[in-house]
């Protein structure tokens, strides 16, 4: 996927769409069989197996839209950065994703810290989120 700085992947969660920088997105995956095992990590709901890789599933919908987020049907596979390595993470989303090019505008008003900018599209303003801050905000809570 293109890593152009003005390239973003739009993903729906319920009626709202959010965006991630395209450079951090690896793949848009069809519905897959999620598997789970006991753990105590917040937001993680299980793992997917994709081409021999075991990918953790991190459901950020409750953070973005609250507890009543509709059923997530697809997975957006993004790269998370850790201290010494990076790792794929599957983000459940409610519909198909879309690649777009737009100028990243600075966040305006009172927005959560994980919103790193805004995209002004034809009929909507889309929040661009930083995955690390988004997940970190909930884990730290």
């Amino acid at each position, binding site marked *: 996927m293109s890593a152009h700085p003005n390239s973003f992947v739009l993903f729906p969660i319920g009626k709202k769409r959010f965006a991630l920088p395209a450079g951090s997105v690896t793949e848009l995956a069809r519905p897959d069989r999620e598997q*789970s095992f006991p753990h105590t990590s917040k937001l993680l709901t299980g793992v997917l197996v994709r081409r021999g*890789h*075991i990918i953790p599933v991190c459901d950020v919908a409750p953070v973005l839209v609250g507890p009543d987020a509709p059923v997530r049907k697809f997975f957006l596979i993004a790269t*998370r950065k*850790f201290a010494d390595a*990076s*790792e794929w*993470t599957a983000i459940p989303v409610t519909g198909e994703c879309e690649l777009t090019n737009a100028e990243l505008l600075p966040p305006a008003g009172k927005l959560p810290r994980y919103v790193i900018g805004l995209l002004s599209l034809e009929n909507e303003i889309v929040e661009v989120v930083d995955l690390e801050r988004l997940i970190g905000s909930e884990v730290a809570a």
Partner: protein
Amino acid sequence: MKRVDKKPRGKHEAVILFAVGEYRFAIAANAVEEIRNTQGLQSLPPGAVTPRLAKFRQTLERDHKRYFVVDSNLHFRLFPSKATRLLVLRESNAAVLVDHTDRIIEIGQLHALPRAFQGEERQWYRGLAMIEDRVVPVVNPAAFMSRSEFTVLQAAVAGTETTKSKGAATA
């Protein structure tokens, strides 16, 4: 920055599959001394039961050795289920109550637990195995009972026994 290495590591390894609640786990076969039923378990003396060590409720005397029995539901923070088998661990004073054991199989790959998992599971599991298209956590036997937990339990039981014998002597 490099990607996390998901390549298999280690050689083939025999593991025992077991279930707790709706979940399936694996444990290295060479970490288990015996699989037995739940007969012969004794309740821990009340003085030895503390909220911090709530997962230990029973003991097993076997070959002049005392084992502290771990409730795996509490260990893995699961809802209660019906335990029918006991895994007596080797080189440990812990035995683990599980719902049932399945079979011994050989696994060829042990995948690292993804870094996104940052909770207690990092101690619970050595890694993940793919078994018949299922992702199965391979448990870390040492995580069932730490050295400090063993010391506290041992002291509590010894203290209770001392009190009992003193009471019997004065009666």
